[in-house]
C-alpha cells in the first residue's frame, strides 16, 4: 500500500475559558458516592497497603473492615470497652491495631478477629495507635502526653517519649527510618523524636492544636494540620516552616497523600475535602460533603476516596480506572516481587547493543464510520456515526468530509422515515450551535431538497421537520434581539469615543460575536423551512 488511509480528522475547537481543569476532571472521576451510616462520628479510616486494598473504619466502639470491591463490611471488630480510635491495618494486611478511650491498645488478627496482643500502660484515651515501618513495633500516643513505642512480641514499651504538654492526637513513624517518630499535640507543637537518642530532636511550632501530621516518604518534609491551618516544615533545614496554608474555614481534621505523593488531601469540619498540588501547595480541587469531615483516606491504587463524617456518615467514592492503568500498575507490582522466576530473569530480554530489533507494526483499528468511508459507503458511514452516539463534533467532521468527497447527496439519498430520523434529530439538536450552523444549514437545505416530495407521508418525519422549523425560527428571533442589543451598545460606544482617538470597543459583545458570525446563512434556512408548510 502506497499511503495509508487517512482516518477522519475530528475538528477540535478551543475549550472556552472557565471550564474544568484537567485536575478537576480527574478528581471528578471519583463518582457515585456510596453513603453508609455508622453509629457515631467516623474518627479514622485506614487503607490496607496490599491488594485488594480493604480499609478499616473506626467509629464508636468498633472497627470495621470494608471491602473495596463490594463496599460492604467484611469484618467487624467490636471488642472494645469504650470508644475505639485509630484502627490501622498493618502493611501486610494481616493485623489491625486500635486504641480506645480507656487507654487500652489491642492487636487483632484480621482473619479471625482474635485479640493477639494487649498493651495496657496508657492511663488516658489513646488516639493514636499505629504500626511502625519496622513490622514488629507499634506506636501509640495518648492523652497522657506520652508517645510510646512498643515491642509487639513481648508487649513491652521500648521507649517512652515525654515532652508534650497537652493531649497528643497525631503521630506517625517515618517511612524510611523506623527510628524517627513524629507527633503532634494540642500544645500546638509538632515534635520529632529519635529512638536512638531516646529524645526529642526537633520541635516545630504549629500555632494551633495539631490534629494530624504526615511526612513525605523520603523523610524530608513534614505536613501538619491543626486549626484551620496547614503547615509544611522542612526537616533538613532544621524544621524551617516552608508553607503556611489556611484554605479551610474550620479545623482541619485529617490528611492523606495520594499514591505518588504528588497531591495532598485534607478533610475539615467545614464540610470540605480539598486537594493540594504539593509543588506549590495550591488548591487544585475541592469536594463538598454533607457533614463535617472527620477523616479522609485515598486508596493506594488511587481508586477510592473515602471520607468519614461527624454525623456517622461514611462516603465511598470510586473512580473507574481504565484497563491500561490497571495493567501498568500490575506490571509495577509484579516487578517488585523478589524471589520469583520473573525477578531473576528480569532485564534479560531487552535488546543489547547491536541487536537488530524487528519492530512489529500495530495494526491501526479504524472506527466503524472510517471503515465505511474507506469503502465509499457514505450513507452507512453517516448512520454509523449517528448510531454509535459519537459527539456532535465527530458527526459534523464526517459531514464536512462527505462534502469534500462530493458525497453528501449520496449519503442522504434513499432513506425511509426510520433511517432519516437520526439525522433529522441530529439537525434539530445542533442547528443552533454557532460552531456548526453554517455546515448544518447546508445539510438541511440538501435534505429538504431531497425529501420535500415525500412530505406528509410519515408523521415521524413531519413532526421532526416542524421542530426543525420552530428551532430555526426561534434562533432567528434570538439573533434579531442580539443585533438590536449590539446596535444600541455601538451607539453608546460611538458617543463615548467620538471625542477621543476614534477607537471603538465592544469586548462585551465578544460573547455574542460568535453567534452573530453565524447569522449570514440564516435567511437561507428560512426559505426552505418555509417550504415545509
Amino acid at each position, binding site marked *: 500500500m502506497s499511503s495509508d488511509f487517512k482516518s477522519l480528522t475530528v475538528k477540535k475547537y478551543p475549550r472556552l475559558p472557565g471550564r474544568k481543569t484537567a485536575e478537576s476532571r480527574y478528581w471528578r472521576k471519583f463518582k457515585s458516592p456510596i453513603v453508609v451510616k455508622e453509629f457515631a462520628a467516623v474518627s479514622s479510616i485506614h487503607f490496607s497497603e496490599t491488594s485488594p486494598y480493604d480499609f478499616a473504619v473506626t467509629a464508636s466502639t468498633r472497627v470495621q473492615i470494608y471491602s473495596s470491591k463490594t463496599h460492604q463490611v467484611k469484618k467487624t471488630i467490636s471488642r472494645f470497652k469504650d470508644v475505639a480510635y485509630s484502627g490501622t491495618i498493618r502493611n501486610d494486611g494481616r493485623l489491625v491495631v486500635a486504641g480506645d478511650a480507656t487507654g487500652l491498645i489491642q492487636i487483632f488478627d484480621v482473619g479471625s478477629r482474635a485479640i493477639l496482643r494487649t498493651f495496657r500502660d496508657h492511663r488516658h484515651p489513646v488516639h493514636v495507635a499505629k504500626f511502625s515501618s519496622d513490622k514488629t513495633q507499634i506506636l501509640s500516643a495518648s492523652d497522657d502526653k506520652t508517645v510510646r513505642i512498643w515491642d509487639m512480641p513481648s508487649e513491652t514499651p521500648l521507649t517512652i517519649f515525654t515532652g508534650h504538654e497537652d493531649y497528643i492526637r497525631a503521630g506517625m513513624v517515618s517511612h524510611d527510618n523506623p527510628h524517627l517518630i513524629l507527633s503532634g499535640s494540642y500544645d500546638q507543637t509538632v515534635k520529632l523524636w529519635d529512638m536512638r537518642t531516646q529524645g526529642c530532636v526537633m520541635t516545630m511550632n504549629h500555632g494551633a492544636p495539631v490534629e494530624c501530621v504526615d511526612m513525605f516518604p523520603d523523610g524530608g518534609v513534614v505536613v501538619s494540620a491543626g486549626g484551620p491551618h496547614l503547615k509544611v516544615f522542612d526537616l533538613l533545614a532544621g524544621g524551617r516552616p516552608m508553607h503556611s496554608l489556611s484554605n479551610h474555614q474550620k479545623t482541619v481534621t485529617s490528611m492523606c497523600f495520594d499514591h505518588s505523593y504528588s497531591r495532598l488531601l485534607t478533610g475539615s469540619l467545614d464540610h470540605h475535602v480539598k486537594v493540594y498540588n504539593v509543588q506549590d501547595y495550591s488548591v487544585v480541587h475541592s469536594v463538598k460533603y454533607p457533614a463535617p469531615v472527620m477523616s479522609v483516606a485515598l486508596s493506594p491504587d488511587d481508586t477510592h476516596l473515602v471520607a468519614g463524617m461527624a454525623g456517622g456518615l461514611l462516603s465511598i467514592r470510586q473512580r473507574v480506572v481504565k484497563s491500561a492503568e490497571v495493567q501498568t500498575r500490575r506490571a509495577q507490582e509484579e516487578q517488585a516481587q523478589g524471589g520469583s522466576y520473573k525477578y531473576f530473569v528480569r532485564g534479560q530480554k531487552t535488546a543489547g547493543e547491536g541487536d537488530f530489533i524487528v519492530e512489529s507494526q500495530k495494526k491501526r483499528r479504524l472506527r466503524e464510520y472510517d471503515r465505511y468511508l474507506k469503502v465509499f459507503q457514505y450513507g452507512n458511514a453517516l448512520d454509523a456515526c449517528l448510531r454509535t452516539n459519537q459527539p456532535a463534533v465527530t458527526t459534523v467532521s464526517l459531514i464536512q468530509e462527505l462534502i469534500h468527497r462530493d458525497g453528501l447527496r449520496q449519503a442522504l439519498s434513499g432513506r425511509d422515515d426510520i433511517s432519516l430520523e437520526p439525522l433529522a434529530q441530529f439537525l434539530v439538536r445542533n442547528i443552533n450551535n*454557532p460552531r456548526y450552523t453554517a455546515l448544518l444549514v447546508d445539510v438541511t437545505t440538501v435534505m429538504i431538497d431531497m425529501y420535500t416530495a415525500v412530505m406528509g407521508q410519515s408523521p415521524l418525519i413531519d413532526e421532526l421537520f416542524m421542530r426543525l422549523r420552530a428551532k430555526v425560527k426561534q434562533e432567528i428571533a434570538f439573533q434579531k434581539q442580539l443585533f438590536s442589543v449590539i446596535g444600541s451598545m455601538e451607539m453608546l460606544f460611538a458617543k463615548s469615543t467620538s471625542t477621543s482617538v476614534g477607537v471603538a470597543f465592544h469586548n462585551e459583545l465578544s460573547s455574542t460575536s460568535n453567534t452573530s458570525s453565524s447569522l449570514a446563512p440564516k435567511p437561507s434556512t428560512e426559505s426552505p423551512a418555509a417550504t415545509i408548510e
Partner: protein
Amino acid sequence: MRLSDYPVVFTSDSNYFFSCNAKTIRIISVETGQVVRILSASVEEGGHSNTVTCVMLNPKNSLQLYSASLDGTIKLWDFNDAILLRTFEVGTPITNMAMHESFPNDVYLVITKKSTKRFHKKQYKKSGGLVAKENSILVRYSLKSSRKRIVRLLSSRSCSGLVISSDGEYLVMTGRYKLHVIHIAAGDGIEQGGVTEHDESRFRTYLTPDRITALAFHPTEGCIATGDERGRITMWYCFGKNVDRPVTTSMHWHAHKVADLAFTSDGNYLLSGGEESVLVIWQLSTGHKQFLPRLGSEIKHITVSPDDAFYAMGHQDNSVNVIRAVDLKIKTNIQGLKFSHTDHVTNPLSTGLVIEPRNGHVVLNGLPGTLQFYDPIKDQHIMELEVFPRNKVSRTHEKEIVPPRVMHVAFSNDKAARWMVTVDGRDDKETTPELYIKFWEYDDDSHTYVLNTRVDSPHTKEITSCIFNPRQGNQAPMVVTTSLDGTFKVWELTHQGEARRGIEAEKAWSCRSTGFYRDMVPRAAGFASDGSLLAVAYGQIITLWNPYLNTLQGVLTQPPENRPIHHLTFLKNSPFLIAATSDHLYSWNLLTCSVWWSYQLKVDRLVPSQTNSNFVVTCSDRAQGSAPLHRILVFKPMDPKPIRIETIEKRARAITFMPDASAAARDAVEPILIMNHGFAFEVLGGRSVEELKAEAEQAAEKARAMALEAESKKSLMSDIFGKATAADAAAAAAKEKKEKKQQQDTAASRGMVSKKHMVRNPLFDAPSHVMAPVSSLFEAFMGQLLTQGKSAKEESKARKKALKQQKQEQVQQQAGAPGNTAETAIDIDMEDDVVEIVGAKEGEDDAIPSSLSKIFSARLSL
C-alpha cells in the same frame, strides 16, 4: 522537469531507466532515484531541438538507445558515455516508435503532419492519458540507407498506441475506435513496397464501441489487451489472417478510462491504471485482482522492468514511482515540479514563489491543497506539505470534485523560519465556503512543519494578503491578514494554560485585534522592516497603523489615482514604501510623507529583496501594433531609473529574488528567479546557474565524502564485533540522555523552592571525607538556605512595581496620541470561538484582557 509526460523505459539490466524530459533524456538510477546522466543536453552538441516523445533500446545492442522526437529526427545514443552515434532525419514530428529484433533495420513510426504549435497547445491541456494527436500516419522507416526510406502504411485519425508482438509477427496500432493489426512478418511483400493499405490479407481493422485509450501485447501468446474510455479492458484473441471477428473477453474494474496497460514479461499478470490512482494487477489465469490504492495521483504510464522486479508508474502530477513487484512497496519516488501539471484554472499559482528562509528553497502551490518545497538550482523536489489533509477520491460523476486551494503562504523571517502561516480553503459554490488560516511550527525532529493552530473561517470573505512582521531580536511574531470583508486582523502567539511541572505552556495563535477603515476593502498590507509600522492599502488609500497600540498613525493618498492598490511593500532598511496599482508604480518616502517618484507601468508583480532595499517588478507593455513586451525591472527606492532591465518573450508566471549571500555582501543585485510561461524555473543575473549548481554540487560532494569517511572508519574488527563505533555511539547517546534528564530535572525544580532542590545541592553529592569541615561550610550553606525564599519574593515585588510603572507610561502615551479621524475604529475582540488550538490545553488568555484593560483605562482617563 517534466518526468511523466511519456512512459519511462528500463535498461536491460533493470538498474536504470530512461525518462523523456522535454528535449532531454535522463538516465535515472532505480536504486537511488538520482539522475545519472543526461542525454541530448544541448542542441549545439547534437541534441534534440524539440520534445522527445519516445525512447527505445536498440534491439541489436542493448547499450544503445534510439530516441524519437517531435523535431522529426531519430537519434541513436551510446548511453553509457552519452555519445550521439547517429541521427536519422525523418522530417515530420514523430509521436510513436516501434522496433523488433527480427527486423533490426526497420523502425515503425507514427508521424503527424500537424504543426508542432498546435501540438503544444494540446499538450498543456489537462487531458490525462495519452495526448490526442490529429491525423497520425504509420510509416516504416528504414535505417539502412536505401532508395526508398519511408514507406507509408496507413493513416488514422489519432494514434493512441503502437506495439509489435514479441515474436515480431504483428504490428498493432490503435486509433480512436479502431484496432489495426498488421501482419508484418508474412513475407517480403512489404519489403518490396508492393503492399498497400488495401491488402486485406495483411491489414485487419477491428472496430470497438468505445474509444481505445491503452494498448498492450501479450509477451508469449497471441493476445492483445486494449483499455477503453469507459474503463473496460478487452483481450483480443485469434486475430489476423482470415478471422473477421476475433474472440474477445473483457474485464471491468476501472470506473474511468484506462490510462495504460502493461503485461509482465512472463505474461501471467496484466497491470492497469487510470484516474482512480489505483494500480490493478490482474492475474490472467484466474481473474484475481490485486490493488495498490492511494498512489497519490492519477496513473498515466506503466512500465515493467525486463527482469519483472520493478513496476514504474508515471503519474499525472509529474512524478515517477518505482515499486518493487515482490511486496508492492515503493522503491524510488522521483518528483518534479507539480504545479506545472495541475489544473491552473482551479488551482492558480496564488502563493507566488516564496523563499523559505531556512534553506532558500522555493515554496509554491503543488497539487491542490498542498505546498511543494522545491530547490530550483538543483531542480529537485524537497518536500510536499499537505495543508489540507484529505484522501484523494476520484469523481463519481462527470463533474470533477472541487479540490481545496492553498491561497497564501508566508514564513516568519527569523533565520530558523520557525513559523509558517498558510491560508487555504475550498469553495464548491454549493455549500458554505470553507476558509482556514493555519499556523505551522517547524519541528526539528521530523524536519517538517507541524500544524500548531487552525482558525476556521477567520474572515467572512476571501483573504487578499497574509504577511508576517519582520522580527528583530526578541519581538513576538505577528501575522496580519487582509480580507475582502473590509477588515484586517492581527494575529499573535499566545500561551494557553499554565506551565506545569517544567513543561512549557502550550503555544497557540489567536486574533489580537481587528481593524477597518471606512467601508473600504483592503487588498495589500506591509510591515516596516523594524516591525513598528503596518501599512494597509484600502482602495487607493494607504493607511498606516501602529500594530502594537492599534492606532491609526496616518493616511496617504495619491490624488489623481482612483484605482485600488494591489501591491504594497516596505523595503528593507529604508523609509520607502512602494505601492503599485494596475497602471502606476509609486515610491512613497515616509519621512516626508510624499510621493518620491512614480511611474506609469502596468505592474504584474512586485517583490522586494530580503537583503537590501532593491525591488523587482514585472510589467507588460503593449506598444501599438506590436506584440506585448514583457519586462523585468529592478529598482532602487530612491531612484526612478531601473538598475537592471530584462526582457523576456512570454509573461513570467511568478518572480522572486534568489537568496544569495555573496550578492548581499557585494551589494549587487541578487539573481532573479522566474517561473516562465512554460512552468520552468529560470535564473536571471547574479552568478550563472552553472556556478550555483557547481557550488551546490560541491557541498553535496563534501557531504558524500564525509559519509564515505564515516563508512571507511568501520574496520574489519568493528564489522565483526561492532565494538568501537557502537560503543561510542552508545556512550554519546547515554551522555545525551543524561544531559536531557538533567535539563528536565532542573526545569522541574525551577518553579519551586523545595527540599528536592536542596537535596540536589552538590554539597550532598560529595562524600563527607573529601569536604571542607562543616564549621567552615555552615555559614555559607545556611545563608543560601535562608535567603532564598525572601529574595525571590522581593524580586517579584520589584518586577511588579516595574510593570506597573510601565503600564502607566503606556497609558499616558496613548492618551497623548492625537485623534486623527473619527471614522476609523478598531475592534478588539477575543475571537474565542473561531480559534482552534491543536492539542492546546485550555486556559485563560491573559494577554488580550490586559491590553483591553489598558485601552479601557486610556479611554477613561480621557
